[in-house]
């Protein structure tokens, strides 16, 4: 029973917020965000300290394992920081107040529902639970993307997201249907065993449909199209959440599909994965170069990062799983650090163009430094954590014999350095636009930026985190082999 407590805490917090919101005056609603953060913090603590790393419930439909344990920590951490970064925007404590944003009770509870969906997703052991929890994780995101009701861009983002999301869901559920038809079971492990046979055209179709859906969540080219428009249109904190939590959920779904459902086949699909990894990295990076809107820019940066993640599926699972989990942690921390600065800047100035950042190092040197460090970590510059994470992934691809892919990835890293440096150049080299006064930053935001920046630096220097991930996930792999 204890393995489901974190989920129950998050659900409880979400409902408590919805209920409390009904009876609160607008002025007292400021306590909602701290309440949400506390609920998440409690759930993280319970998950980290109390929850056993293995176990199952509901007749094996809900299971806990070390990988799920790590994913849940990561989902909740991403959500926690998203909540912290949303406070200023939602409470209207901003230099330039965003129009049509508010409804704090609904906002925070929607985020929490989506987190619960992701947590169930990674614990699911059967097709129905997997699909339902995927939808639970995704549907709130459509809502969040359209949160600014009177902003046409936000509405457009929500609409595009829901249409394409429905398309992806349709493909997935169609694929699942075929799988059920072929295997006669909804249990993932049972399906995996029964599918271990020769190829059939129906199986091929099912695989393609499910993989396309996975690619949608993970923004793999050519299933990435929604990302740029949605990232740009959504409120900035939501964009931050989409770029980390939704991507983490995508990776969790990919783990479920590629390691559990098609575990026996994946070693033969190296070429497929490599081609998509190369396409995703290259397209994301090349298109990012010509972007002017920083949110759209970060969207393409996130797309290219998804390509790096794919490298982890090329090698043996005992190397790939810890490497991908570690890079996910690094990516979440670095990307959130970058977004924290972007959210702050958008709050204070209402501007979203890269050129608007010029001279930031003179007016707000610490913020500029934090953004630079975060971007350099995403670019993979040593000794920052992004370098270490990429190093593990690249070495997996190289050990698996995909040297051409490592070369492509290295070239892409160089290209990415170029466009990350575009932002740094604006901040550090270009003079400020007008007699610029330093922009103020709220306590909560400054503290969040500080914590994330420390994480960006230290994750790369101290090897304990990776060692710990590696040690705990090895046990999971052993259980997979038996199952």
């Amino acid at each position, binding site marked *: 029973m204890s393995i489901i407590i974190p989920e129950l805490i998050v659900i409880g917090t979400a409902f408590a917020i919805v209920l409390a919101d009904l009876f609160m005056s607008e002025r007292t609603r400021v306590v909602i965000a701290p309440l949400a953060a506390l609920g998440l913090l409690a759930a993280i603590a319970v998950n980290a300290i109390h929850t056993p790393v293995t176990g199952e419930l509901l007749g094996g439909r809900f299971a806990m394992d070390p990988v799920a344990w790590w994913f849940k920590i990561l989902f909740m951490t991403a959500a926690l920081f998203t909540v912290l970064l949303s406070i200023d925007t939602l409470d209207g404590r901003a230099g330039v107040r965003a129009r049509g944003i508010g409804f704090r009770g609904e906002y925070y509870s929607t985020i929490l529902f989506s987190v619960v969906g992701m947590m169930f997703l990674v614990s699911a052991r059967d097709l129905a639970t997997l699909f339902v929890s995927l939808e639970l994780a995704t549907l709130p995101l459509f809502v969040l993307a359209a949160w600014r009701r009177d902003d046409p861009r936000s509405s457009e983002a929500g*609409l*595009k997201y829901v*249409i*394409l999301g429905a*398309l*992806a869901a349709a*493909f997935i559920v169609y694929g699942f249907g075929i799988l059920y038809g072929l295997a006669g079971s909804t249990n993932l492990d049972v399906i995996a065993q029964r599918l271990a046979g020769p*190829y059939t055209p129906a199986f*091929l*179709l099912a*695989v*393609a*449909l499910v*993989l*396309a859906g996975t*690619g*949608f969540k993970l923004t793999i*080219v*050519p*299933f990435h*199209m*929604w990302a*740029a*428009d949605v990232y740009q249109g959504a409120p900035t904190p939501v964009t931050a959440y989409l770029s980390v939590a939704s991507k983490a959920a995508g990776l969790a779904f990919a783990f479920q599909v590629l390691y559990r459902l098609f575990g026996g086949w994946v070693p*033969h*699909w190296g*070429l*497929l994965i490599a*081609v998509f990894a190369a396409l995703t990295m290259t*397209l994301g990076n*090349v*298109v*990012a*170069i*010509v*972007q002017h809107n920083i949110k759209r820019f970060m969207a393409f940066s996130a797309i290219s990062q998804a390509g790096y993640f794919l490298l982890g599926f090329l090698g043996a699972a005992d190397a790939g799983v810890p490497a991908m989990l570690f890079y996910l942690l690094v990516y979440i921390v670095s990307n959130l650090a970058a977004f924290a600065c972007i959210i702050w800047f958008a709050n204070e100035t209402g501007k979203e163009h890269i050129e608007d950042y010029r001279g930031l190092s003179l007016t707000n040197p610490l913020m500029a430094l934090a953004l630079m460090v975060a971007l350099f970590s995403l670019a993979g510059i040593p000794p920052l954590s992004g370098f270490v994470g990429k190093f593990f992934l690249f070495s997996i691809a190289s050990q698996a014999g995909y040297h051409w892919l490592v070369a492509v990835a290295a070239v892409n890293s160089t*290209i990415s350095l*170029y466009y990350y440096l575009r932002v740094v150049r604006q901040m550090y080299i270009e003079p400020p636009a007008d007699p610029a006064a330093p922009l103020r930053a709220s306590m909560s935001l400054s503290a969040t930026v500080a914590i994330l920046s420390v994480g960006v630096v230290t994750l790369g220097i101290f090897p304990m985190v990776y060692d710990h991930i590696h040690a705990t996930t090895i046990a999971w792999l052993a259980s997979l082999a038996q199952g």
Partner: protein
Amino acid sequence: MDGASGWMMQHAWLIPALPLASFAIVGLLVSPVSKRAAGIVATLAIMASAACAYLLAWEYFTLYPPGGKHPILVPWSYEWLRYQPGLSVNVGVLVDPISVLLLIVVTTVSSLVHIYSNAYMHGDHGFGRYFTFLNLFTFSMLGLVVAPDIIQMYVCWELVGVSSFLLIGFYYMKPSAVSAAKKAFIVTRFADLGFLVGVILLSYFGFRLFPEWSAEVGAATNGLAGTQPVDFAYLNHPAFLARFSELHVAFLGTSMLTLAMILVYMGAAGKSAMFPLHIWLPDAMEGPTPVSALIHAATMVVAGVYLVARLFPAFAYSETAALVVMVVGAFTSLFAAIIGTTQDDIKRVLAFSTLSQLGYMMLALGVCTTEYAAGYTASMFHLFTHAFFKALLFLGAGAVIHAVHTNSIWEMGGLAKKMPITHITFLIATLAISGIWPFAGFFSKDEILVSALAGGHPLVFGVAFVVAGLTAFYMFRIYFVTFWGHGRGEGAAHAHEAPAVMWLPMALLAVLSSVTGFIPMGEFVSLGEHEAHHGINLAIAIPATAVALLGMGTAAFLYIGDGRRAKSAALAMGGAYHVIKQKFYIDELYLFITHRIIFHYIARPIAWFDRHMVDGGVNASGWVTRTSGRVLSFMQTGQVQTYGIWFTGGVAFVILILWCALL
């Protein structure tokens, strides 16, 4: 090899580690909080290091008493970089007579300069920064001195160069200081390029020849177990040198050994400011005066001499390299002494004097051979005594400059009465450098002259003899002009004695300059068989003293009084005087070569190639990437229908790949 005992021997790493720790602590923690505390902590750290150095010297010479054999010990070492089996670089501490000697010199002078600086730099904006750099320098210099292998030597060598650069450019708001710092760095870096190539040659061939060597000498049974191909113990081993000198460089017609040693000597010549790489040292006087005393007189500039002494067996094995050392040393000695007679800036005179004395030390190393190694002892002896009296001269000059706020000797004068302690100590140092009995310089200079004559180099002896006279002349010139007569400038009229924190170190150095000559250096530092040279060779000492007195007398004749005689003497020399005063136009020659020839005929074409070919290629790749980005971004039409089509197309693509790959 490891007969070391005693606590200090085992913990000899403390000597460089203390300044390093202090550098970090003072620079990061103390300096931002309290500048006063920064000075005190930095000074205490160096004094602790000095105490360790004295203890080490005491232990070493108790273990191996003076007059006996003095083995080279490596009591502490640690594997730093392992390139491959059989090739690793250690960091460690090497203890032998010359490293002990240098440790004493460096820590003593550095402690005194630190104490002195607490007063001299008082109220300066960069007080904390100053002591941080000074600690860094002391650490680097000590690391260089105790290096057991050529790699550690090279690393510390560069660190010394960096700290020197930082300290010369300490007054970074002054354009002249900035350009002097750049000049020093560029010239010494240029020389270090030679050193680096030498190090690479030595390590490469050292590594190649290492297996044969260890088989031949039975390294394990010979007490050389654990020796690495970059260790001095190996590089100086006769068996290695014999093999190395058999390798020939076809296009130069010399042996590989000679080539490597001349390249190494290039580095040494840069750091010790030998002609024609001497041009940076006079300009380096732009740094604070205590820095000049420590770095550009007593310690860093002797690093080159020390390097040659450290690799002496190798230099001696290649006779050509030893000849180069001798000729360059003798020439620099004379050349700098001549320029020194005409300069007006008190620190510049001392700088040229330093050049001249460094030339002395080099020539002493150059004249000595493995059979007759008296020059080795003489050189180290002179290095030892010179460190004290030259540091004293600089500190004295610093006290004077501090009092009168000018560097020009013609604006000083009559300071003997106003600054009595400075006057007496300066006089002692002047007598010491001029080689007057019983001051320290007399003894060490005597040894050099003896070794040159007895080593069969009468011409070198002649040069050294003339330089002795010139030295006495230019030193007494500045002495008389500065301290005698009447105050000629505004500052000179209001000058007053330096505070006790400044004159105490000077007094201590004055004592050292007076008595260190009586140390029987041959008992402590000698090479191979113990040399039987004791006491003073009267046949040389008397003429040498006579020529020094002659120089003194000439200075007194020309410069006591109103200096009219000096002016007429300068006029009588005509153009020659002008040429000397302009330092033989060497700086102008360098400018001509670099600006007119190198920049014009070499740098411009390279720059053109870089701008049009290399940059063109880079720009083209950037253009391709940007253009493809622009084209690809058209894919992102903003139409959901398009996105849906791509999505569906992607599914077809997945099927296609799986089909092709698996069926």
